[in-house]
Every structure is written in C-alpha cells, then in structure tokens.
C-alpha cells in the first residue's frame, strides 16, 4: 500500500508540472495587471504545434521551444490589442482562446495519431535514493525539475529582485509607477509575453510526455486552461500557494481516479468533469474566506487550522489592484 501511494504521489508531482508552470506564468502576467484569458487556447495550440515540431525535427527540445514560441506570440497579440489598440482584455483574451483552439484542431489534423519523441525520467544521482523525497522529487523528468525550479525562481524574482519590485508596483498602482519613471506598458508587454510563453510550455509537456500524441479534440486538454486560471486566484497570486493549489488539484484528481473502482456507482463521465465543480467550489471558498462570517465561523476550529485559513492581519483581497484595468499615460 505504502509504495503504491508513493508511486501515486510521484505521479501527482509529475502531472502537476504543466499546471504549475502555466499557473506561475499566468501569475506573473496578472501581477503586472494584465488578465490573460487565452490560457486555455494557448495550452491546446502549443500542445499541437509543439508536438508537430518535435515530430518533424525528431527532437524534444525543439518541441518545447516551439510551444513556448507559440505562447509568446499569442501573448504578444493579446498585449498589442489591449495596450496599443485599447481593446478589452476579456474580449481579446476570449477570442484568442477560441481562435487558438480551433486553429489547433484544424492544423493538427495532419498530425493525428503520429508518434513523436516522449520525455523519460532522469533520476538525479544520489538524491533519488533519499527515501520518499527521492521518489517524489528526484526521480522525475527534466521538465518536472524545471517546474520545481520555476516555483523558487518566481518567488525569488517577485520578492527579492528590483525587476520583481517593479512588476509588483505596476500591478498595484500603475500611475504611481509611471511617475517614478517606470514604463508601465513595456513591463506589461514583457510579462504578458513571458507568462504566455510559460503557459505555452505546458502544452508540449502534455503532448510530449503526460498525454503523448495529438488526437484532436479527443486529446483532452480543453478545459485545463480554465483550471489554471482558477488556481491562480486560489493561490492568491503567490507562486508558492499557486503551486500548492496545482498539487492539491492533481492530488484530488488522482484520488478520484484511484478510488473510482470503489465508487462503482459513480459513472465515469461524472468523475471526468469532477475538476470543474471542484474549481467552482474553490473559488466560492476563496470568496467566503474574505467574508467576515467565515472568519467568525473558523474561529471555532483548533488554533493551528484557524491560523492557516484566517486572513487576520493579512490582506483581504490579494489581487493586484490594477488587474484588468488599462493604463494610459497623459
């Protein structure tokens, strides 16, 4: 039982990798005040293009890089339409989400059922022999290590570096940042493109590893982008909490699948969409967490649990203040 569980958990860490990377990418974008609703489309399109590129070049790295390039390009279009052309971030984001999805189904037609290289795990010598931790974190694919590095790097970037401070200031109060000589819209371009490139990396992680191949609309990637967006909110725009959200999500999914046999009465269709009501519930929870009656309710709980959930002394609404609001200098 123990080792089964460990294998399961290692699987959770592995399968959360694309969500972690994409959600941290979106986190960075939103920190600058830009809302990228195209995430869902970017993941599907980059999965397909990344797969096609890896197939043609017979190279994994080409696949990943192409996926990121696709993401970056979509991010640029989003930033251009919303910043330079002053269109609504929601409208452009949604249109791009649909466009990317349709585009991937159309262009991916020729790549259906082909097989491209697939990434294998690369255990880190010595570290992988540490009991439990070794199996969980050091016997994974390179991409999975990258997702772990991403968490630390994003935390470091946002809180310990000057560019990170600039990023936070732009998301909080762009007009004040502008008055201090920061080119607000350039910062927003950069982080929209960077964040989208990270989202674009998530696609090939699926099509070249977790769900190898391209099967059109049956690939089962449609919808993950929305989960990524919800996890960003759940994590309160903090890379560490966002990553924890991703692991929690994958854990629940694994739990559902692992115990599917025991819940034979529940039809498979229901379990497949279980993530989405779960997503809604977490968003409800995040909102209630901000409500006062929730605070008084959880005060009844044991202290450590109360302390974890309580927002006393913390910011009630951690969303970047200027999220979704365009900035124009005089």
């Amino acid at each position: 039982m123990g080792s089964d569980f460990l294998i399961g958990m290692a699987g959770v860490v592995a399968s959360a990798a694309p969500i972690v990377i994409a959600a941290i990418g979106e986190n960075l974008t939103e920190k600058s005040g830009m809302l990228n609703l195209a995430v869902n489309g970017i993941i599907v399109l980059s999965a397909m293009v990344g797969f096609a590129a890896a197939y043609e070049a017979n190279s994994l790295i080409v696949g990943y890089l192409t996926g990121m390039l696709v993401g970056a390009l979509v991010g640029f279009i989003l930033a251009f339409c919303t910043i330079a052309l002053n269109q609504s971030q929601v409208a452009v984001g949604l249109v791009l989400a649909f466009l990317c999805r349709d585009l991937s189904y159309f262009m991916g037609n020729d790549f259906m059922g082909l097989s491209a290289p697939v990434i294998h795990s690369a255990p880190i010598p010595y570290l992988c022999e540490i009991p439990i931790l070794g199996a969980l974190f050091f016997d994974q694919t390179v991409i999975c290590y990258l997702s772990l590095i991403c968490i630390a790097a994003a935390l470091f970037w946002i809180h310990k570096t000057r560019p990170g401070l600039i990023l936070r200031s732009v998301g909080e109060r762009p007009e004040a940042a502008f008055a201090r000589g920061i080119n607000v819209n350039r910062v927003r371009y950069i982080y929209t493109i960077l964040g989208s490139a990270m989202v674009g990396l998530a696609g090939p992680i699926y099509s070249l590893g977790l769900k190898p191949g391209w099967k059109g609309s049956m690939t089962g990637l449609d919808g993950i982008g929305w989960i990524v967006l919800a996890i960003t909110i759940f994590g309160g725009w903090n890379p560490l909490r966002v990553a924890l959200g991703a692991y929690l999500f994958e854990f629940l999914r694994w739990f559902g699948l692992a115990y599917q046999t025991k819940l034979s009465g529940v039809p498979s269709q229901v379990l497949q969409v279980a993530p989405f009501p779960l997503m809604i519930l977490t968003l409800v929870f995040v909102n209630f967490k901000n409500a006062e009656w929730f605070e008084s309710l959880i005060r009844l709980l044991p202290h450590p649990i109360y302390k974890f959930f309580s927002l006393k002394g913390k910011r009630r609404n951690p969303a970047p203040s200027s999220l979704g609001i365009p900035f124009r200098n005089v």
Partner: protein
Amino acid sequence: MKIEIRNIHKSFGKVHANDGISLTVETGEILGVLGENGAGKTTLMKILAGLQPYDSGEILIDEKPVHYDSANTALGLGIGMLAQDPLDFPMLTIFDNLYLGMQNGFLIKKRGFKKKVAEMEDELGFHFDLSDLVGNLSIGERQQLEILRLLLFGSELIILDEPTTGISAQQKKQLFVLLKKLASMGKTVIFVTHKLSEVNDLCQRTIVLRQGKLVGEVAIPCGSSSLIKLMFGRNIDLESPGDVSEASPLFGIQNMVIKDPRFFSNPVNLAIHKGEILGLAGMEGSGQKTFLRTLAGLEKPVEGMILDGGVPIRGNSPHDFIKLGIYFMPAARMEEGLIQGMTLEEHFILSLGKDDFFVDRDHAQKVTRSRIKDFAIKGFPQSMAEELSGGNQQRLLLAMLHEKARLLLLENPTRGLDIESTNWMWNKLHDRCEKGASIIFASADIDELLRFSNRIVVFFGGKISQPFSSQEMNSEKLGALIGGEGW
C-alpha cells in the same frame, strides 16, 4: 535651485488653464500659490513637475533653459512634486516604496539603502518602520514619506499641491516645521493652497492666480482683504448661518456605530429636524463618507439603527432607502454618480421615473427639458453625461434628486465648483429645505460648513462629536476640533 518660468500657456479645449504665466522662485524660498478652485494652480504645478506638457513658454533652472516631458526627467533635474493624493503604493512596504525607482542593479540591496534612509530621517527628525505597509500610514505620514523619498532622490525644488486638505492640525504644524527646515537646508518650496492663513503662516511671498492668469505677487505678511480681492476679483461677505429649526424631528439615529476600514465609531445619537441642514466636518477620511453611506443604506451599521418618524428602517439596499425618500449624492461624479455612455434623459428616467414597465419617452423628455432649464445645465436631453463639464455634471446630479426626497445626503456637494456655482447650488438646496427636506452634507471647507449648516457634527479619528449649533461655533473653534483639539 532657482527656477524661472516665462510666458507659459496651456489650454484644455476652450479653457485657457494657464495664460502667459511668468514667475521666478529663488533658492531657499517658500513661495505660496493662492487661488480658488479652477484658477489653474494644479495645471501650473503639473507643468513644472513634468506631469503635464505645456503649449508654449520656457522654463529655466539656474538661468539655463531646460526641457522635460515626464515626471521622471523633472525628478532627474531636481524637481519633485507631492501630489494631492500621494503617488505611493499602499500595498507595498515602506522600504519597497522608497526603493522603487531609486536604485539600480538586479537584486534588492537592503542594508546600504536602509542606512541612507536612516541618515535622511535623522536629518528631518522623523522615523518610519520600513517593514510596515504604506497603507497603514495616515495621510499626513504618507506626505512625510513622499517628502523623504523626494529628498532621497536629490530633489532641490519641492512642490506641494494642497497638502493640508486631509491632515490634522497637529500634522499640519509638523508639516510646516518640516517645510521651513527644508528651506533652511537650501531647498526651494512651492506651496499651493486656497487658504489664506496657511500662506501667512508659512510663506515669504505669494502669487495669486485667477482664471489662468497671474494677477498678483504679494510679500507676506499682508492683509487678508487684499488677498481675497485678488483671488476672487471682488470682496466676499461671509453670511451668518441660519437658525436651528425647532421643527419636529424627521429622522433619528439611535446608538449607531459605523465601521470605517480603519475604525469603529463611538455610538451616535442624533435627531434630524425637518428643513434642517446638518454639516459634517472633519479631515477627509475621518468617517463622514461612511456615515453618509450608512445613512443611505450602502453600508450596514455595526450597531444601532436609523429611525424614520420613530420607526426603525428595515431596508438593506439603497433601493429600500430611496423608497423612503432618502437620497445620496456621491462625490465621485463619473465613478459613482453618473453613467458614462448614457444620455441625460436616461439618467432622469432612472432617477425620477415611476415604476412603470414601459417607459413613457415623451414624458421623460418633458421632465428632462424642464430639469435642464431649472438647473441651468449646459446640455441637451440626448447629450451623454460625460460630455458635460464638471460643474454641469454636479448640477445634473443635483437635478436627479427626486422632489419626494425627505433626506438628502450630500458628499462634498460643491467640491470643484467656483464661488458663483456654490452659491447657486446652495440656493437650490435651501429651496429643498423650505419644502420640508432635511440635508446632511460633508465638506472639507470650514467656511462652507459655518455658512450653510444649522448644526455641525465633527469627525476626528473615529470619534463623532455631539452636534454643535453653528451660531456658537466659529472658524477657529471648528478648525481646532477638526484637528483633534478641544475634544
């Protein structure tokens, strides 16, 4: 730093905001800039600070002509401006807020910078906890923080735009001490205000702006009456306040405790009489806004209740309160009061209309036309709200208050209006009172409060005073109360 401006012009559409202004400010001088609202003070200061481009003219620093087109380049030349609403980051720590835009390099280097900050703090005589959030500071402290930041950046000229609007008397005293210290350190200070006493307390010299023109340059001290004449172009007689109405109480407030983001108030008991005007005094953010919003049903009181003719009001939305004849007029015109992209007629349909399903457009148009005429709004039934000028938007807001209103809650009803419009506005409001409505209004202007209210309630740091009859009140006493003295 000596700064000289020559023949500066700036127009917004048809409004000549700055009309050929020339001026010299010497090193170490504190110059006052006086003028009523809309005289062009803020525009001139924004031009000086690089926040606003100008149409023509010249700026010279230490005899050398300079050009700049952004706040950042102005800052680089040593010109820093403290805006009315400090341009800082409430959600960042004080350290991050100071660090931003100041240092280069990739990593945030804490130690060296902290030392630099501490040195400057010692020189100025105040200290901040650098790990605290900016948002936890009072407005006065945030002003000090901004001045500290500008000095760290090496500013030689500091411009302050109406810095005393939201701060207490105590904080004002501290600010003035600080500004005098800056002048003695050889910094140049430009101090914008519309309050005569402040110019007399602080400045060596003042200029007066009226309708975009520089109309006078006066050495301080000088008599108030000549300054008033320069500011308004005429003498203004301050009227005495009206009598407290002894009519029956219309609304009552019983043990009401309000909740502001920063505090809970003390319980308030108050009766509002028919036809009475009640003024809410206090520095901005002392709870007047929350008080008005609570009475309008926009916020819930923590405790206590509001009585309507002795009966507690059981509504929980503005809709319910409006049904009872309680109307709220917000200060933020385009944000909370009017709707961008909707016509005046539609505004009147929404605010004055009946509860019919199909809208009677003919009737609506008739109503709209008559209101436009009565309230002298420069616009047409089909004009969009955002096409009106600020003053006309304010008139529109006033016109949207239903005749059936029994209690009008007005948040800074005359802010941004000139004297003429203010008087006109108050004439209209007095008409309402004669017809039996009561008014509660908040204002930052002591003169307005004393002139128009029957009774005044003072707000200070979460405390709400008993009502004072304005006959037993004078501007010194009220000013002291607003500043937290004499409680």
